[in-house]
Each structure stands twice: as C-alpha cells, then as structure tokens.
C-alpha cells in the first residue's frame, strides 16, 4: 500500500470542505450581512467623505473595503471553530496518531477555510462592482492579491485564536470582541481620521488597519503602495501561525488522558472499587 502525503492531504481537504459545507450558516451570514451593510452604509460614507479632507475613499470604496475587512474578521471565528472542534470532538488526537504530520494536518484544514474566506471577499467586491460600479484603479489583480493575503492573514490569526480558546463559547465571545475591536480600530466601520486622537495612534496595531490600507492602495492609490500594508499583514499572519505552532503542537493540544469518563464510571465491575493511581 502506498502512503503518500498527497493522498492524505487530498483526503483532509475533501473532508474539511465537507465539514464546511455541512455547516455553512455562519459563513453565509457573514456574506449576507456584508452585502446589506455595503448597501446601507455606502451613502453614509459618501457623505462622510466631504468631512474628511482629503477624502480617504469614495462611498462604495470605503463601504466595500470596510465590510470586507469587518466580516472576514468575524469569519475568523469560523476558521478557528473548525480547529477548536477537533479538540472538543476528541478527533485531534486521532489526527495526531495518524501518519499525517502536524503541518500536513493544518494544511489540510487550512486550504478549504482559506478558500471560503477568499470566496467571501470575492462576493462582497463582486457585488460592489456589479451593483455600485466599484472599479479598482490599480487593477483587479491588485484587489485579488489583497484579498488573498488578507484571507491568509485572517486564517492564520484564526488558527492562533483556536489555540487560546478553551471552549466554543469562549471562542465565540472572544472572537466577537476581537473582531469588533480590530474593525473599529482599523477604520473599517468609522474612518480612522474621524476616530478620537488617541485611538488614531493605536490604529496601526490592528491588522484591520493594514488590510484597509492595502485595499485603499488597490482601489485608489496604486500598486506601488501595496508593499507595506501587505508586508504588515504578513507579520500579523506570522504571529497567528506562531501561536498555532508553539501552543497548538504543545501542551494545549496534547492534554493528558482524563482520569475517568462518565462511560467508565457506568461500567465499573460490581464490587470494583476504583482507585486513583
């Protein structure tokens, strides 16, 4: 029997895609909400553009880029949940016990989630182009490059988040706070120029800030200005990947066996007095 990494990776990608397809609700929600808010907020951002000098982005540019950043940050939870589920379902240990290596397992999980994030971005920008005439001045390739790099960054941050969370509830609450904070701080909801001064100084600490900067470069500034924000997104992605590798391959994923499960307690032999060793 041939045991090729390619067979394993194909099986993992197919399986992860099936898991996403089995539970598409959250991802669909984050697309639909994005479409609605783009439609609703576009006139507001167009009006705000007159208050911010020089105008940072047109109404549709700000609405499309802002909502793409905001809802991909919320979708970060979806990616993280797929990794966390492996722990709550106890399947993580079975993956680790298989011939697949740690990197191979993560790649098998990452590729379909990454694909879903890219598709989400594509739908939001495609809708903005088709309905509101959005046109990236640097070209569609530049916008696509931003979407790919930002999606990879979100994916890796999600993997990092999954190693920090101990339960789905914790991930849900923490993920919402993180997404909203990063969105607000990055200027996706309210342009950075309109934020309080002290918040404006903190804005570059948010990956959302650099994602919006990258999209701004693709939409209005030009490809020459893409380098810095994309590099910063790479740094944030590496932080997430570092967390996933350092914590994920170590103690948080390799929990010692539990002393006794409920099943065990119900199956004690009569007269048996379990002892702790």
């Amino acid at each position, binding site marked *: *029997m*041939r*045991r*090729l990494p390619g*067979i*394993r990776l*194909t*099986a*993992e990608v*197919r*399986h992860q895609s*099936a*898991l996403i397809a*089995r*539970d598409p609700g959250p991802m669909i929600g984050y697309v639909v909400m994005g479409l609605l808010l783009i439609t609703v907020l576009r006139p507001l951002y167009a009006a705000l553009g007159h208050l911010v000098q020089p105008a940072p982005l047109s109404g549709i540019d700000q609405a499309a880029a802002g909502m793409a950043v905001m809802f991909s940050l919320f979708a970060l939870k979806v990616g993280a949940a797929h990794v966390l589920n492996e722990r709550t*379902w*106890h*399947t993580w*240990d*079975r*993956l*680790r*016990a*298989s*011939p*697949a290596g740690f990197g191979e397992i993560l790649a098998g999980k990452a590729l379909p989630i990454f694909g879903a994030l890219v598709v989400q971005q594509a739908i939001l920008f495609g809708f903005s182009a088709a309905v509101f005439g959005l046109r990236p001045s640097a070209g569609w390739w530049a916008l696509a490059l931003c979407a790919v790099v930002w999606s990879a960054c979100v994916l890796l941050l999600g993997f990092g988040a999954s190693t920090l969370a101990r339960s789905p509830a914790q991930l849900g609450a923490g993920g919402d706070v993180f997404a909203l904070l990063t969105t607000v701080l990055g200027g996706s909801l309210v342009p950075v120029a309109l934020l309080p001064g002290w918040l404006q100084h903190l804005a570059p600490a948010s990956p959302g800030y650099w994602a919006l900067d990258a999209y701004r470069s693709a939409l209005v500034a030009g490809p020459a200005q893409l380098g810095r924000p994309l590099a910063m997104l790479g740094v944030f992605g590496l932080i997430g990947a570092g967390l996933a590798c350092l914590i994920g391959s170590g103690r948080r994923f*390799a929990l*010692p*066996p*539990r*002393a*006794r*499960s409920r*099943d*065990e*307690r*119900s*199956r*004690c*032999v009569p*007269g*048996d007095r*379990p*002892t*702790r*060793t």
Partner: protein
Amino acid sequence: MTGALEAVGLRKRFGATTALAGFDLDVGAGEIVGLVGHNGAGKTTFARAAVGLVTPDNGMLRIEGFDVARHSKRTRPLVGLAPQELALYPTATARQNLHIFAGLYGLRRREAQRRIAQLADDLVLTDILERRVRELSGGQQRRLQAATAMVHRPSVLLLDEPTVGADPITRDALLTVVRSAARQGAAVVYTTHYLPELDALEATVAVADRGQIVARGERASLLAAVPGRAVVEFDCAPPALAVPAGGSVDVCAVDRRLTITAPDPGAMLVPILAAHPDVAAHLQTIELHPPTLDDLYRHLLRT
C-alpha cells in the same frame, strides 16, 4: 510467537501521578490480549503511548520491531486506535468519517470504498452510512469508531473499551470483527471492564494495576489459581463438617446453605461428604461455581 507489540518497563508520570510504573506487555501477531484493570491502572496511557500521543519517560515500546519514539513515521501507519471516548466528526456522515481515516492512512479512494463497504457489512453499518454521526445511537457510534480504527487493516489494533454502552447485538458484531482481524494476523489489545467479552474473544489476559501488568497468561492457567465456590443446600441447618485444614479454603454457613470457597471446590466436596454419610439424607442441592474472569479480576486486585 514474535511480538507485534512489545512494551518493556514503560514508565510515565503526569506531575505527581504515576500512570505507568514499569509496564510490560508483549502481544504476538494474531493474538488477542484482554487488558483489564481498575480505572487509572495505566491502560489508556499505554494505548496512547503506542500511537505516540504520550511519550514514556522510560522503557521501550516497539511496533513490529520499530521503536515508537524514534520511528513514529513507520509505526503510526501500523496501528489502529479506537479510543475510549468517542472521537468522530458528529456533523459528518458515517461514510465521510470512514473516508477521512482511510485517507489519513494512505488508502486511495477506490480502495477505501471497497474496504468501507466490507467493514460496514461486517459491523452492520451499511444502512447508516449516509447518516450524520450525531443522529446515530450510542451503539452505532461505537461500531463506527471501531470501524475507523480498522479501516486501514492495521497490524496492531488497540481497542479501548469499544463496547461501552453497546447492546448485545452490537457487541456480538464487534467481537466477530475483532476475532476476524486477529485471524488475519492483527495483534489486538482489547481493553475492557466487561470480562465475559474476553471469554467470547478467547483472549489471553493481562491484568494491569497501578501502572504495571500484575498477571499475564492464558485464561485457564490464571483461573487455576483463583478460588471457586460450591454451594450446598440442606433441608435443615448445615451440619458441622470436617473440612481439611490449611490452604485457601473458606467455609461459610448461612441459614440452610453451606458455601465452600476453594481452588477446586468440587473435588474438595466429594471426600468431605463421603466422610459424613449421615448428612447425605439432608442434601437438597449442590451448585458448583467455577472461577470466572470476574473472580480473577477481584482476586488479583483485592490486595
């Protein structure tokens, strides 16, 4: 018999807790070993060590001659593990669960489909292959979990309490498949608290206690050292019988019943009754209870 699985002097501590304290076990190809012991005796830690999920502090663990710690890439494909807790994808179908584990162990899709069809047939899973795992009963999930461990035809099969919560039909189907795997050459370590299953599997027995194997061998030879019982019922209060002194003989009279506990109570009863011909008229019934694996388990772990 060459050891498909060999563990020598395994030691493992989790903080202040000693999980393995010199754990020795040798399982040959085609052999089924029933691993029994108290909760916390080290059975699960041993199973996890065999698949590389736990690294022993000391000792040697080999799968088909390869050291698990040093050659995990060679040993992992050889082992199938069905852990104690359910470890399946609840939102995926039974078939999808089988496919992912087949793929992880390198089975190509067509080969996997054939193997899944065969296992599903053997484990009575065919009708539920397209249903989501979370919709299945506990017994069906247990069978599916065992199937995921066997889908790649491992040469070492570790089943950690695979029949917990299973109904008799589920249990029978599973035991049949385990016997079949052993006949095809797999070394099977079958952890259970339900000892009659080991009789059904005709397994040799290893008893674990406090991280060590305290007894290991054929069931018959292990049972020979365990007292059985003879219960004699009279139509009046039991007479005082002259019971041979010494050894591990215990006589207990309650109401009209006399219970003799001894290594071979039947053989002991004959000369006793022959020496008291007057009591024969009062005899109602004699029941002989040879020692069972349950008795062995209690006998070994009582001290």
